[in-house]
């Protein structure tokens, strides 16, 4: 991995990112509209390298690993590409076209999140700074 020292580090950042996102009225509103259980699968970088976000029923939750319920949507990619993605430096359509991201399930809800990606990226920079990871912030 280019940006991470082990498989647990990116998951810690991403879970924190979503926990912070849930506190933001705009982002949480957008996530509630998604109304899906999403598994972000980075297991190509290690068996524990994944996390989930549950946007179902207006109650937002997140956690490491694979969700207990079957996910509505699974997005499989590398932890490095996930870093680029949350930094808004990876065009998701391009990544899907080039098979860098593999999607399983319905992604219709995710389209509603497109307008929020810039804001997610801003929040992600803050999280990285708070966690002492300024060195990997993408300009």
């Amino acid at each position, binding site marked *: 991995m280019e940006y991470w020292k082990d498989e647990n580090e990116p998951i810690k950042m991403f879970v924190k990112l979503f926990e912070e996102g849930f506190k933001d009225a705009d982002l949480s509103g957008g996530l509630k509209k998604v109304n899906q259980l999403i598994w972000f699968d980075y297991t190509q970088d290690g068996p524990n390298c994944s996390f989930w976000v549950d946007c179902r029923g207006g109650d937002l939750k997140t956690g490491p690993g694979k969700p207990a319920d079957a996910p509505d949507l699974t997005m499989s990619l590398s932890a490095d590409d996930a870093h680029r993605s949350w930094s808004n430096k990876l065009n998701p*359509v391009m990544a*899907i*076209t080039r098979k860098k991201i593999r*999607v399983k399930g319905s*992604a*219709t809800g995710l*389209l509603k999140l497109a*307008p929020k990606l810039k804001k997610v990226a801003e929040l992600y920079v803050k999280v990285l700074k708070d966690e002492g990871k300024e060195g990997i912030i993408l300009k």
Partner: protein
Amino acid sequence: MKANTGKIIDVDLSAGTVKVEQLPEEYYTKYIGGSGLAAKLFWERGNFDADALSPEAMLLFMNGPFAGLKLSGASRHSTAGRSPLTGGWGDSSCGGFLAPELRYAGYDGFILTGKAAQPSLLLIEDDKIEILDASEYWGQGATQVTESLKKRFGKAYRTLVIGPAGENLVRYSIILNEGHHATGRAGFGAVMGSKNLKAIVVKASKKKMELVDPERFEELRKELNPKIREALASDVLHENGTAANLIGGMYAGDVPIRNWTSNFWEEAADALTGSTLTETYLTKRGACAYCNIACKRIVEVKEGPWAIPEGPGPEYETIVSFGTLIGSIDLAATCKAGRLCNDLGIDTISTGGTIAWAMEAFEKGDLTKDDTDGVELNWGDLETVIDVILPKIAAREGKLGELLANGSVAASKKIGKGADYTVHAKGLEAPMHDPRGGGHGMALTYAVEARGACHVADPMLFAEMGARYYPEIGFEYELEPRTDENKAEAAVDMVAFGAIENSACFCQFADAEVTIPEWVELFNIVPGYEWDAEEMMRAGRRVFYLKRMINYRFGRTADDDKLTKRMLEPATDGEPEGVEINFEGMKQRFYELMKIDPEKAIPVKEVLVEYDMADEAGAVW
């Protein structure tokens, strides 16, 4: 010859004669089929001096080599000829159910010339081809006529019908297949109307076609159909239709607002997006023949001023052209407007574009009530649009109907004002993708495509989204939409690829999942063109070149490869705010790469020779 039958029908409506003829195989291997084949036939036989609405004008309906295959996306056909809207080359792709039926009946297409003495319909049933009286249908809406024809001939008979607008020679009239699928662009409904042809009806007795390698095709089909259906884009299109990504488009600045004066309207994104249509008015999903994406919408608006019974619903283009483009976010109204446009037989893109221009003209005082029969043209007033303006346009009724029935360019010329805020290329009103936000490469391809501003003449829009990747031909660009970087280079491949798509008559949504090796194999195992990837791309480029040469013979030059002032003004809001498009730089680079003469706007002679077009070169050099 396989897949293609090599047979076309030549119909002289003045003489009332029908002739079936066999085409040389070389026409197919050089020009593919569909719009490419139509261009070749027009080049050989078209009258370049004839007005588009004169009896001498030639109207061509052509299948691609894949028509009739049980393959998602392969059931389109192309209609082509001189456009009555632009005066130049026009071609328009239509999905639905006509293409397979025509192929099974034994034909690759048909050519119409002349003018029938009375309202007529053309009936094609295998070897039986007749011109029948259609006086009883003249003046009726396309929906009613479609239903009447189904009752008269049978449900399995496939129909192409024009509405009253086509009869009245509205220059952006459509031809409607099965009451739902439109040959939308370039105004070919008016050409049918000028020929007194209300409808075309096609039925084959058998559903058979011959392929070069049917066993291998069946294997490939079983790989391709699931791959196409399971793709993320297909899933999204199936679920929420062509407007599925309207929200993303809005935030990118791709969605035009109030005649392209704005690039961002937050409230409109949620109000008009595909998922909102699904949640509010969708009753069923529809599909073209053999397609399992099913991106078509069937809708019902149960109550309110825009109530409509269950039937065809709006595509993205209609939702925007009767939504944000004219200042509205009323989704039910777009459903009603789209339905009415189908029935009257007018193109929702050009109609919306022309009305948006008129609304701005009225706002500026360039149009007054004296010009509009006393009708006020106000942003967002869908009641007036639906109840007054659309019927007036279709009937050419009054000053307003007559003014708008020829499109925005002719209207601005007529009043001597408003050219700066027309939105078109070569006279074709632009679709609902604003290159300032959607991608600067699209500005280039809007300008250089033969038919004018069109988002499906080539897949540049998708390329700039990041949804096109063809490493086998070196197309590996990582394009940033709002810059000119690599856009001319990308356009070189995309215009060729667009020519392949529109000549093979393959849907852009479905073929996004087809790789270059699979494309090549399809051409080799279905019609047997014996191509490699290079030869396939050469054929696409050859078609692109030929259409430009047709335009040259219509009097078009490099001065016509341009966009209007409004389209190139930096956006005043949204994601693309303040960004300038380096249009001239991209155009110059594109000309250099394509070896296009900077004045004539056609390929230099050496290139034509290189592309086995020495004979054609003689007509222009």
